[in-house]
């Protein structure tokens, strides 16, 4: 039974549909619109329990459950990392996903993995790089198909962060308007937090509306969450430990060198990911945390 009808009845103090009071037989079962639009008495045909709400004109404006629009769950696509897919179900199409965390928390790793997965699916992707920080070697090592990736490098050396931010927002508007991209990533990771926070919520809301009902995954990579309720998914990353040669350096402190520096080799990072918020499920989200490992390109 629709929760809308039940809750309305409960709020109004009227009996529920499941009340045992016999109000006669009805056949054929009238449509919801007929039931609530016209307060006419039921016709006796088949035994059924229907309450006296048929005659109540106060329910004329209530939309019956059968007429309520069903919002389909967005399609989820792989993020490129199996552990992340297990945590979040993937990245939702037509929604805004935020990836936040401090430096060296694995944000760019996750971003490149998502790009690689998208280009492997044959989709075209775009990265709007506010700080011009993308490393082509890392992009290639992550398995991204370079001819399917559009890279927009905002600002130049002398431009202030505000100018870069303005360019990023305008470019994002153009790309969302153009359409056809499987994934659009806004890389705000190196922008100062106070600068990134200047983006008004109306802008995020506009981005979300632009990408709604499209197959585009909109990804925002930043230091802290700044899109508020406009994002459907909020993932927080953190560095747990780094892997060096065969030694796991779990507690980084002074004098933690075990072997000479020339014998050490950074082989990977252990990243923790926490699903802070998900608006894709009806049940409230319990904070879930997973750990995944990223390897450096030379680690093999």
């Amino acid at each position, binding site marked *: 039974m629709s929760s809308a009808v039940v809750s309305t009845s409960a709020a109004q103090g009227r009996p529920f549909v499941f009340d045992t009071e016999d109000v006669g037989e009805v056949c054929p079962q009238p449509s919801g619109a007929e039931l609530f639009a016209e307060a006419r008495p039921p016709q006796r045909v088949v035994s059924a329990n229907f309450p006296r709400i048929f005659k109540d004109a106060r329910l004329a404006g209530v939309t019956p459950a059968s007429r309520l629009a069903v919002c389909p769950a967005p399609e989820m696509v792989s993020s490129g990392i199996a552990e992340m897919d297990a945590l979040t179900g993937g990245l939702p199409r037509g929604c805004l996903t935020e990836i936040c965390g401090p430096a060296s928390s694995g944000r760019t790793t996750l971003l490149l993995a998502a790009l690689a*997965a998208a280009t492997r699916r044959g989709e075209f992707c775009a990265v709007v790089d506010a700080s011009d920080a993308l490393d082509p070697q890392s992009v290639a090592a992550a398995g991204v198909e370079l001819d399917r990736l559009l890279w*927009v490098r905002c600002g130049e050396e002398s431009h202030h962060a505000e100018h870069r931010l303005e360019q990023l927002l305008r470019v994002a508007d153009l790309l969302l308007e153009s359409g056809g991209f499987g994934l659009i990533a806004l890389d705000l990771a190196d922008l100062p937090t106070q600068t990134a926070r200047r983006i008004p919520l109306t802008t995020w809301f506009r981005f979300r509306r632009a990408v709604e009902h499209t197959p585009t995954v909109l990804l925002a990579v930043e230091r802290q969450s700044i899109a508020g309720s406009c994002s459907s998914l909020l993932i927080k990353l953190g560095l747990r430990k780094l892997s060096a040669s065969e030694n796991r350096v779990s507690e*980084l402190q002074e004098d933690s060198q075990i072997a000479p520096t020339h014998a050490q080799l950074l082989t990977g990072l252990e990243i923790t990911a926490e699903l802070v918020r998900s608006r894709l499920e009806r049940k409230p989200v319990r904070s879930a945390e997973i750990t995944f490992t990223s390897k450096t390109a030379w680690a093999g």
Partner: protein
Amino acid sequence: MFACIFVPNFPVAAVFRAEPELRARAVAIFEGKPPLEKVFAVNQGAARMGITPGMTKAQAELCSGLTLRPRSLLQESAAHAALLDCAQSFSPCVEDAAVDTALVDLEGMESLLGTLPEIARGIFRVAADLGLDVNVAVASNPDASVLAARGLSGVTVVSPGKEGESLGSLPVEVLFAERWENKESAGKRKEDEQKESARLLATLERWGIHNLRALAALPEVALSERLGQEGLRLQQLARGAASRTLVPVEAPAVFEEAIELEYPIVLLEPLAFLLNRLLEQICARLASRALNTQELRLTLELQNLTGADPQLDIFGIPSESDEGQSRRSSLAVGHSQSLPAFGAFANDRRPTTNDASQHFVSGRQNKFCRTLRLPLPMLDSKLFLKLLQLDLNAHPPGAPITKIHLAAEPARPRSAQGGLFLPPSPEPEKLELTLARIAALVGEARVGSLELLDTHRAEGFRMRQFVAAAPEASRQKSSTEERSAVAALRLFRPPLRINVTLENGEPIALVCSKKKEVQGSVLWKAGPWRGSGDWWEREAWARDEWDIALQTVDTVVLYRLVHDLLGGAWFVEGTYD
């Protein structure tokens, strides 16, 4: 059956095609070198005012309300090309009879295009779409169709066997058509032809022969004795009995349009208006031949700056306040975006972007050229206009414009097999416009796709044009396997210069003056990893790389340090993220 498409008063029609707003005015075309310019052709409005060909320009200028235009061979060439395009859109067998006349062989076309009157009306409509006001005549032989098109306005269909009857009322002057050729190239040949034609016409006038019916009725023997073979030929034409085969030509695939301006223009808005007109004409001609284009070349002739009026500024614009200049989107005021400066490890420019402005002085002319190369063949005049506007905004010509020339390189239309299950991809036309707008925001060299270069040098890549090509099915199937996550590096561009505290040659602490958060003590380090290259080049490089974990205020950050062995400086190149 043959169709003739004839453009009456061709030089005037060529001007009307470029400037349709002149159709309602009295127009005279002049040619020649000043001060000996003479009127070459006039329209009906100018003829009513008493302007006749041969009159000097100075005499014509005395008439108020008369619009004078110089003869433009480029406009006439474009009009002639449009005429051939119109003809070729109906039949592959087309004869280029004269600059104002095209003959079309309609053999077998009725089953495709309809009845002969429908075909004739279709030709008339297509020619009108291309900006030409033509006469169309259909007859059983080419010469009869030419005479009917020259003598009868509008659309005419001559029934087989009734050529003599249909052409009989036409004046004999129609047999001696004026040839609109350049006097300099025609030379003495045209003078001899004109003299002979005048002699024959005078003879026929003396005999009282005023129309083709009278000429056709003359006895053949007597005519040949007095006028020779030429007289017999003219009689056959008058009877509509001449027969010959068509000499088909392959119309050159040259799609160019040009317009010479009465006065120089300095603003982008009127230039956009003219460009729109030229683009529509070019696109209509391409569409008539089922072609698209992948390259547009815009050439602007600029006003000679050496003879600039002292009242004008250096770009030939009337001096006005800075406020007024900044408000207008002037071409000549410096609104151009400077090309990005490239550093020592510069990325190469995309190979297929618009060419840089080419300013060269040819005699007294300055020319400004821009080339627009499209990733795929397209045919959308509005898109082309938008792209040209964005390009000219970014690269203004810098001087008033006196002439506009636009050429399109023809290409076969693209064909793509659609599919229900293909992944989403951007529309090529929309994407091209979006990329142009983004390039106007961030710079041409800062948007595109990546291409790695075969080098170990840092920043060994270049940007190239982003093309949303159709996905290949085979590539999709082979790349479904997932890989493990690869630790990525975020670069600082340019690298951050730091002061490093060394111990036994190893960094133990660092401070960056430019970025306060990049400082602290080194908790862990790996390296150095030495790299060098290009020692045989002028730009040799040699460096040591260190991977370090730095304790910052609230977290641990992994950095890559670079020690430039040639310069001695230390840099933070990027962050492992």
